[in-house]
């Protein structure tokens, strides 16, 4: 910083004197400067001039200060800060709630056409029973495996359907299984029953326009037995031969190979059908459709039997039911595949039958 030799003396630079007077230098730098000042009259004069300049600057700036200041109490500032924070949180809450509702609406719309019945001639079509007019939606959880002990059901003509009834979306949170993904599966259902089968205590009910309630609730994963066989009297049918007579009545998941198609006759031709299909992984997808009381009875009875056979439960499977008026479709399969499977179904079947 400061160099002195016999021939030349380097004086303290002006900016360093400013920094020195502003107490912006380190202790060692200050010592060095003071040592130089003690024997350099020129730098002393320079320092005095800078000190005067500094004081003058301060005095000039003091003239342009505001009138005498009485600061508000600190509590006032704190109260204003707290109030602003509350307003901010309120807006965040409103925004997040609006986003949630929007997301649910979108998902409800997006998934409203995922399940189809068997198309005549082809392997699969969407059951008209899934959508019936003048019905509001409802979601049910049902046991996975089904026991066929349901009584015959009297025939009941189904009304023609023009458009889908509003659907309900159920977010199913599953117990963690070996192959359970982190994602959440969704179940769709339409029905008018005012008493949902799921636990209302855990559900969050949202009203989504009109009179169509949209509900979110936890769906416990339903165990499915390792043996996919159905009890009761069933008649195996050949899809190629008989599906022509059952146009639009056999519910199954399109795009998957059908391994078995069975029917339990009901009065007036209102049969219960059970279609087994296999995923690429080898897992079974079973779709049971028919009159709602019979399908429901089947799945309920089977749930009891299954809990005895598999007390530890099979947490990797779940069942989704769709109920519309007197019809019900129950789809059972691996929990980790059901959601994506339904989405795939929709992509491949853009034409809706109603």
């Amino acid at each position, binding site marked *: 910083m400061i160099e002195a030799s016999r021939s030349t003396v380097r004086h303290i630079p002006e900016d360093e004197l400013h920094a020195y007077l502003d107490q*912006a230098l380190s202790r060692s730098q200050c010592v060095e400067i003071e040592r130089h000042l003690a024997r350099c009259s020129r730098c002393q004069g320079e320092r005095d001039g800078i000190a005067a300049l500094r004081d003058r*600057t301060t005095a*000039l*700036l003091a*003239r*342009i200060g505001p009138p005498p*200041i009485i600061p*508000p109490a600190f509590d006032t*500032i*704190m109260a204003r800060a707290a109030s602003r924070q509350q307003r901010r949180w309120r807006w965040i809450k409103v925004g997040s709630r609006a986003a949630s509702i929007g997301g649910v609406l979108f998902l409800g719309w997006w998934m409203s056409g995922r399940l189809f019945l068997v198309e005549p001639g082809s392997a699969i079509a969407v059951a008209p029973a899934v959508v019936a007019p003048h019905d509001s939606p409802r979601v049910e959880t049902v046991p996975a495996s089904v026991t066929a002990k349901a009584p015959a059901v009297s025939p009941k003509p189904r009304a023609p359907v023009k458009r889908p009834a509003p659907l309900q979306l159920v977010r199913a949170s599953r117990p963690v299984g070996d192959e359970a993904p982190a994602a959440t599966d969704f179940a769709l259902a339409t029905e008018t029953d005012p008493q949902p089968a799921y636990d209302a205590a855990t559900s969050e009910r949202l009203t989504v326009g009109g009179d169509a309630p949209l509900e979110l609730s936890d769906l416990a994963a339903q165990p499915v037995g390792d043996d996919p066989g159905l009890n009761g009297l069933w008649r195996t049918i050949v899809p190629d031969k008989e599906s022509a007579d059952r146009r639009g009545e056999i519910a199954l998941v399109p795009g998957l190979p059908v391994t078995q198609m069975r029917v339990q006759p009901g009065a007036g031709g209102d049969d219960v059908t059970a279609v087994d299909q296999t995923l690429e992984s080898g897992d079974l997808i079973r779709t049971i459709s028919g009159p709602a009381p019979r399908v429901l009875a089947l799945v309920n009875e089977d749930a009891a039997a299954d809990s005895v056979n598999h007390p530890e439960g099979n947490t990797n499977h779940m069942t989704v039911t769709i109920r519309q008026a007197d019809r019900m479709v129950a789809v059972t399969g691996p929990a980790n595949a059901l959601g994506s499977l339904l989405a795939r179904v929709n992509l491949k079947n853009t034409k809706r039958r109603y």
Partner: protein
Amino acid sequence: MGDELEELYRTTYATVVRFLYRKVWDADRAHDLAQEVFIRAMAHRPEKPRAWIFAVAANLARDEARAAVRRKRHLTLLKDDPATMPSSPLPADEMVEEDERRAKVDEALATLTKRDREVLLLWDAGLSYPEIAQQTGLAVGAVGTTLARARKRLVDAYDRSEQEHRAAHS
């Protein structure tokens, strides 16, 4: 943190108002902005509250200056409207001596470059060289140089203004 902010509020509020006043030239507005600065500090809880407060104050003053420019344009337009013109302008002799001096300092400050003025006002607000450097983007070693130049220019400009004033009245 709350105690630290409270202490900082008590010791720095007046300085922040003064710092802001020299930028916005409106005492009430300077008070409002200073309170805004501390309200934001309460919400953000900065690690270095003192430097943070002056940085935010400088930003608010900058925004205020832009808004003032817009208002000035608006007033310029209104000025051409006879209905908005004052009935009688203030007589010059009503301007107090303090206002004259203040106006001269204002003019002298206006002769400084933006950076010199900023450094000078931050130093006058009590910020250290490292804090000034952090806020202005200068190297710490350059703060002394900038301050030296700013002080000299301010005093020179003010003295020149005084001389011109005296010459005009002699």
